[in-house]
Every structure is written in structure tokens, then in C-alpha cells.
């Protein structure tokens, strides 16, 4: 039990008439990096929103580190589980400096020594201390995503939920952010759930992954199976083939 970071059992989510997550079950071990893969509308982001407590309309069982979670989470939960969003242009308040952004979670959780914590969070994500009093529009996309990661890390969580953290970034910046995430995980023994449509990013970052389609789990596989291009199901095979690029018939 203690070895399981996240366990989801028979999760169902509906928005009105549309049933977007259907009987989904999976487990993530402590320290593991787990990928959720699928096309738009497959429900992968919805799963993250349920896990993070952003979406309260669901049924099933969600347990974090052995503790079954209610719909409304307590403060300790939010300190332990943090999320990084897809769009670094939309997820930072445009009128707040980096310092304000990082100070807010500390104030909410009543943590002392904010000064030192903010300084450390910035240096952990490789941003110079001089960036502390900049506004988001004075930062590049990659720097903004680093601030978003710093905001998540400043509370010293053990689980990070990553929703397409690099899909809005150039490949060279993507490489830097992925390296940063990999190094942080190793250093702090973090558990990741990474949602992505890019199979090569998931292959690089994760040990296991779950392929989803229309809200259902299609196939869970190890990254070795992915690298060997030997999934069991036709849909997973189709995704792999499509992501290999364009092929002219004949």
C-alpha cells in the first residue's frame, strides 16, 4: 500500500450528457513517472483535473498515498499534489510579478521563510535571481514554464501532475524543460503523471504509460514496449504509426 502514490479505481466523469471518462482504473507507484496518452477528447486532461481536485464531479475511488480522497480536498492535499499546465502564456497572472506568483502559495499554506524559499525555487528551475521582479510578459515561453514549475515546487510536493508541459514550446526549449523535470524528479524522488499527445516525449520521460481513447483505457504498456513499437491493441499501434510521420502510399 505504501508503495502506491496514486490509485484510481473505476473513475467515471460526465459533463451533462457526455460521458468523458469511463471506468478508468490505474495505479502509479511512488517515484514513478506515468504517462497518459491519447488524442483530443480522450479524457486524459480530465483525469488530471479530477486527481488535482479541480474537477469535483466524478464517481469512483481516488486514493493518494493510500488515503482515499473526498471530492473536496483539504489544504494538506494541495501542498502535496501540484499541477503544471499546458500553456505558459495563460497560466501566469499577467499583472503579478514572478515574486507575487511564488509568494501566494506560501502565504496560503502559512509557510515561513518565504524569502529563502522563493530564492531557492527560482534557482532550482535554473532562473537567475534577477528574474524575481519581472512580469510574465518580460519572460520567454520557456522561462514562463520554468516559473510555473517553480510555483508548483515551492510547496515541496511529492506528486506533480503535468498537463502537456512542453507542447507550447520550441523543441530546443522543450529539451531544456524536460531535462529540468527529469533532474528534479531524480533529486526529490517525485512522482509524475505526464499527459501528452507526443509519444516520443512520454517515451523519454516515463516508465509506463496508458493509452486512452474516448474516455476509456485502451492499453497500459511499459516504455520498452513503446520503444519496440509492439503494443497489443490496434489503436495504440495506429497512434504509433501516425506519430512516425507522413508516408506516401505506393
Amino acid at each position: 500500500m505504501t508503495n502506491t502514490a496514486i490509485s484510481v479505481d473505476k473513475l467515471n466523469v460526465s459533463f451533462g450528457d457526455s460521458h468523458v471518462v469511463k471506468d478508468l482504473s490505474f495505479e502509479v507507484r511512488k517515484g514513478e513517472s506515468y504517462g497518459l496518452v491519447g488524442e483530443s477528447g480522450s479524457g486524459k486532461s480530465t483525469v488530471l483535473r479530477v486527481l488535482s481536485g479541480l474537477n469535483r464531479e466524478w464517481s469512483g475511488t481516488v486514493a493518494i498515498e493510500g488515503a482515499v480522497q473526498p471530492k473536496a480536498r483539504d489544504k494538506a492535499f494541495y501542498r502535496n499534489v501540484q499541477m503544471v499546465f499546458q500553456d505558459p502564456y495563460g497560466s501566469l497572472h499577467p499583472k503579478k510579478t514572478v515574486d507575487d506568483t511564488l509568494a501566494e502559495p506560501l502565504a496560503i499554506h502559512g509557510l515561513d521563510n518565504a524569502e529563502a524559499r522563493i530564492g531557492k525555487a527560482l534557482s532550482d528551475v535554473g532562473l537567475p535571481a534577477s528574474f524575481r521582479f519581472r512580469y510574465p510578459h518580460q519572460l520567454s515561453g520557456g522561462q514562463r514554464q520554468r516559473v510555473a514549475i517553480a510555483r508548483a515546487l515551492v510547496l515541496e510536493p511529492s506528486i506533480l501532475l503535468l498537463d502537456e508541459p512542453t507542447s507550447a514550446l520550441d523543441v530546443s526549449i522543450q529539451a531544456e524543460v524536460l531535462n529540468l523535470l527529469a533532474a528534479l524528479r531524480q533529486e526529490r524522488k517525485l512522482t509524475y503523471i505526464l499527459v501528452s499527445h507526443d509519444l516520443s516525449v512520454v517515451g523519454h520521460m516515463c516508465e509506463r504509460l496508458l493509452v486512452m481513447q474516448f474516455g476509456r483505457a485502451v492499453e497500459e504498456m511499459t516504455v520498452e514496449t513503446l520503444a519496440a513499437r509492439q503494443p497489443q491493441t490496434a489503436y495504440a499501434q495506429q497512434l504509433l504509426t501516425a506519430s512516425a510521420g507522413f508516408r506516401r502510399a505506393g
Partner: protein
Amino acid sequence: MASEQPLLEVDNLKVDFHTPTGIVRAVRGLSFTLGRERLGIVGESGSGKSMTGRAILDLIPHPGVVSADRMRFRGQDLTAMDKGARRKLRGRHISMVMQDPKFSLNPVETVGSQIAEAYRIHRKAGAKEARERSLAMLEQVQIREPARVYDLYPHEVSGGMGQRVMIAMMLIAEPEVLIADEPTSALDVTVQLQILKILDDLVTERGMGLIFISHDLHLVQSFCDRVIVMYGGKVMETLPAAELADPAARSRRHPYTLGLLECLPDLGHPRAKLATLNRDPAWLA
């Protein structure tokens, strides 16, 4: 084929933006020719790839200034033309598909009437003929029930369908050159391949010239014939697309191209740490 006049000839194209804080040089001396082929332009954000497409169409916004030693479309000198003449070319002979259907379609008009409008304007056709042509065009871009989709508003169609509507609208006047600016980057991989197939058929069957602007090296390599690699508004190199993946051609590659290729995670070759790009200021000198 070789003796045929190229569709587009561009020599030393420059786009400058005169801002209060100085001149921003978005494109710095780009030269290329386009035949009946798929030409890829790749680069990171800010490399000037989209500005190149816009400059050809005369769509650079104020305070941008376009200059070129030569810019010809099928032998006609674009630099000597006035705004009106450029507008007559635009849409009819040279067309552009934008990245995001959500922001490029008129939200308060049905998609069908938007396609028909493009046909009526460029072909001076009547309403009935335009409607028939539009339905046929929707079918050609693999939309299953054209008559139903014709009457839908943009918010009622999916991203993939919206992009196909855009392509239908741009192609209905049968342009000789199509500039596609990241036409598939907002789409799922499987839909992406369907859109590419449509573009591919147009090049092979109708002999259209296609400029394919993208940041996706894998896609460009598998789809295009030739690739221009841009960085900071300058061309780093132009190469046959097949050579991007060819390990034997590595030593001939520009360090920037190599750097871009190496920072991509690769399923077949897992690495503990991804390479990051070291930018050399000399590339922009």
C-alpha cells in the same frame, strides 16, 4: 520539368519592422525558388518563417517594410506591382492556410457560405454555381456529409474539420501556389495525416507549388521535398528533406540543424539527458 519557369523566385527578401525602439529585422536576406514541389520552411518561433509567407502575399502589417532584390510569381515582378494588383493575385493565384481555424474563420457565417464567397469573388461566378463548387470542394477535402457541414457555423465543427474547411476555401479558386503556415500543428496526429494527404495529392495531381511552414522536423522530413532551415530571420541551410534523417549526411549539416534534430526525444534511441541547443552568435553575423 527543369526547363519550366519556377512558380516563385525570391531573391534577398527582407522584412524590417520600424519600432520606436529601433529596427527589428524579422527576415534578413532570404532567397529561394519554388517549383511544383513541397518546400518546407522550418525554424523556431521568431525565426521569420511566418513572416516570409506573409511577405509573399503582401500581408505584412504596419510598421513592417518588405524589400527584395527580386520577387517574381511566374515571371511577373511582384515588387513592381501596386497594392491592387497584389490583391488580385492573393487568394486567386497564391493562397495561404493559417494555423488556427478557430481564429481564421468568420464566426457568424456558415462555413459553406464562406467557401462559396471565396469562389464567387475569384471566379466571378453566380450563387448557384458557387454552392455546387463548394460542396464538391468539401467532398474533396474528405468531409463526409458536405450538404450538412455546409450549413454549420465554425463553432459547430471540430478542429480537424475546421482546418479542412479552411483548406477547401483556399483551394476553391485553384491557386498555383499554396502557403500553409503550420496547417496541422493544432490537430491530432491521425487527422494531421489526412490533411497532409490532401495537400500531397494537390501537388502531385494538380502540379501546385506548396510552401509548408512548420516547426516539426519529423513531419517536414517525411512530407517535403526540400527544406529551408531558418534561424533569427536568416537561412542556415537549404537541403533535400531526405538528408535530414540520413546519418551519412550528418557531417554536411549546419550545426543549428543538427542541434534541432538532437534535442528531439527519440523513441528508438532513449537518452538519459536530451541535448540542448548551443546558439552561436556567428550564425547571425
